[in-house]
């Protein structure tokens, strides 16, 4: 029992640890509907990102990319943002793939709607 407690304590207090970067929240919010075309998509992750390997694509219902520029890591390196073209009403899919600073890859996607 002491061994179990000791190992548990060591692992619980492993302070320098990193983890996979997961999507914490987004603007526009995951699954939300916004009245006006957003100027950009901003994603907040749970870990710092490697800029060279962290990307976003936003696609319309026809599958065309509506990014207006390149995705960039911002803030304390946990934000990833990409500017958008002016979006007509419709459903858009945000597809992201990132590499955390501890070299874990993660990916995901979600949708948001404009004006409906």
């Amino acid at each position, binding site marked *: *029992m002491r061994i*179990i*407690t000791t*190992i*548990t304590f060591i*692992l*619980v207090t*492993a302070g320098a*640890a*990193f*983890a*996979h970067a*997961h*999507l*914490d*929240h*987004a603007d526009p*919010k*995951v*699954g*939300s509907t916004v009245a006006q075309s957003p100027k950009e998509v901003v994603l907040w992750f*749970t870990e710092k990102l490697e800029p060279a*390997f962290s*990307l976003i*694509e936003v696609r319309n219902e026809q599958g065309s990319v509506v990014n207006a520029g390149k995705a960039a890591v911002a803030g304390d390196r946990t934000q990833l943002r990409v500017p958008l073209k002016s979006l007509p009403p419709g*459903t858009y*899919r945000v*597809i992201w*793939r990132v*590499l955390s600073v*501890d*070299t*874990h*890859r*993660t*990916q*995901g*996607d*979600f*949708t948001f709607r404009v004006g409906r």
Partner: protein
Amino acid sequence: MFGNSWPLATLAAILTASAALSATAAQAHEIVGNRFFPATLAIDDPGVNDELALPTISMQKTGDTPSFKQLDVSGEFAKRITEDFGVSFAPTWSRLYAPGGPNMTGSRGFQNLETTLKYRLFKSPEHEFVLSAGLEIEWGGSGAQGVGAERFTVYTPTLYFGKGFGDLPTSLNWARPFAITGQIGYSIPGASKITSATFDSDAGDIGLDIEFNPRVLNWGATLQYSMPYLKSAVVDLGLPDFVNRLIPIVEVSLQTPVSNTATSGTVTTGTINPGIIYAGDKYQVAIEAMIPVNRQSGGNVGVIAQLHFFLDDIFPNSLGRPIFASNISSGRPAFGR
């Protein structure tokens, strides 16, 4: 529910550790596209990873006649050799309360050591699907006979799978956080029968008692609803962070003797385990009820709890990496769905 106090104390320690670790968001483990498949308690998950389950504690009355209370405390250390191939070691310490044990006065000791070799055969991020194959080995004679550890080795080739429903159309958004996992294995004892001498004191006869060791189908599945998936891939409802980390789950674990069943019978035994998993960054904590499917499977509703560490997140540059790790690929990641 517990017969003595220290399992309760340990569960309290798990919950305390959970609270201490809940400062940051999200989770880890077998991750396939958008999908996080948590480690499961009753059956093995389909993932190949660096992880430590310590401790797993269960308490239930057995299906024996007479029934007795059994406490199991186990651990499992899993290590990736390559990105897709890993090995794990799982010792279990058991305490049988009276009238259990060979003299019906109770017993305690280690079960046979279990080793699992597992290889990830296929992974589809787009369809949140993963398939693995493994060989589970229970090393005969490595445990104490007083707690039921057999003298022969048992080999169980097993298939594992996981499937998330994130690829359903958006009109079925409510169902997309669901996922299923499952396993099917075939246990082959290293000895087909055990023969022991018996003595009839009334008649003064010496006889032979033959017990056949059956080959057993080990099968099970889980159904899980991922609140982390709901938040990050379907709709962010603005729920509290604690709720967004929960994964309600039902596990089913069954064993069916299928051959060499002359003395064992062919009755399927097992448990249905409703429970909940809390997924943190570097660990998860889970608790489930163990509902026996029939009298032979248990004498009451038991409980199982586990604290599970993701070593690849805790020690990403040392213990948490495959021994033979591939380098990070360069170039533009491929998008698509």
